[in-house]
């Protein structure tokens, strides 16, 4: 099997190993399920579940101070929760890496996801992060590798958006509309 034949999440997990990411913090999203499962099954990665996304920004800062590389896995709706906490890695010139699964775009069923989905890129960029976006499985590996390199080799704050088209729109097929 070539690396291209793997699921894109397996490729990200392999890159975490290659870039010595040993701490992953998570507010779960269905789009991250496979990667979360891989990280939790990996004895070399400690996976921390957060109550809210900004906890992960502060956790990453503390881990960096102690010499540990980490990654934050969140959904686009959680980006807004992080805004003030982003000031910590920003003002201290710390590396920071986040993977953001997108809601509120391609094929979205739930309109309440749309406002934060539409502003995710702008909010991240306004907070000083460099943003990369991936729309296809083939792009994921090279994009994540480039983003990890920028974050850890050049100490930048970086987010990779995993688009809703890539992860698949959440299905609400069992629901019954009341109107």
């Amino acid at each position, binding site marked *: 099997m070539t690396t291209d034949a793997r699921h894109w999440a397996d490729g990200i997990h392999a890159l975490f190993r290659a870039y010595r990411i040993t*701490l992953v913090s998570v507010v779960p999203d269905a789009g991250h399920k496979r990667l979360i499962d891989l990280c939790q099954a990996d004895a070399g990665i*400690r996976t*921390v*579940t*957060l*109550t*809210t996304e*900004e*906890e*992960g*920004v*502060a*956790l*990453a*800062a*503390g*881990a*960096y*101070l*102690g*010499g*540990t*590389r*980490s990654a934050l896995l969140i959904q686009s709706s959680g980006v807004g929760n992080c805004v*003030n*906490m982003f*000031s*910590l890695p920003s*003002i*201290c*010139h*710390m*590396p920071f890496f986040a993977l953001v699964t997108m809601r509120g775009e391609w094929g979205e069923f739930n309109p309440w996801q749309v406002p934060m989905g539409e502003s995710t890129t702008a909010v991240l960029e306004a907070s000083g992060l460099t943003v990369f976006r991936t729309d296809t499985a083939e792009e994921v590996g090279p994009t994540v590798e480039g983003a990890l390199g920028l974050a*850890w080799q050049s*100490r930048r704050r970086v987010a990779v958006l995993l688009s809703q088209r890539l992860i698949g729109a959440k299905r609400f097929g069992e629901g019954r509309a009341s109107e």
Partner: protein
Amino acid sequence: MTGPIDRRDAVRRLLTDRGDLIVVAGLGASAYDVAACGGSPLDFPLWGAMGGAAMVGLGLAIAQPGRTVVVVTGDGEMLMGLGSLATIAVERPPNLRIVVLDNGCFGETGNQPTHTASGTDLAQVAQACGIADTRTITEIGAVDRLRADLHGAHWPLFAVIKISDEEQPKVLPPRDGPYLAHRIRSSLLGTAAALED
């Protein structure tokens, strides 16, 4: 609720003969209290990131399992990050201690009352989150016992010290972020701090 303990005295006692304790200080008066103890390369005082002090402490505790990490912060700062107490309870870092200096008010902004002034009990919150060793300290002798346990415990510890709301002279720690980050990293990691991440 306001207590009888002088905050400077309490923090001075806690950090007496601190050895290689790592100290994360929450923004505002807590950071000034830690700075008033003389300052150490192993201090990481925050000037912002309100609500994040306990999680910065957890990150350091995970990255440095051979060291003890003490988070010294205020009731207002802790209230903004209550969820982190649940996260810390789940992670059970044996080398993390959180000390909340509780004066029941937002001291930096004009002494407006915090929720603890109306009865929110942070030690009970931490206990209910699953942190087994929690204490509320109302007399200075218990601060000395807490100081011993900062070094001696092998489990996460959460303490609330009821301090007076009397304002103390400001003793300002450095506020240059890259300097503070490099200072503690080079203390912990040596020259690798500059070469590695």
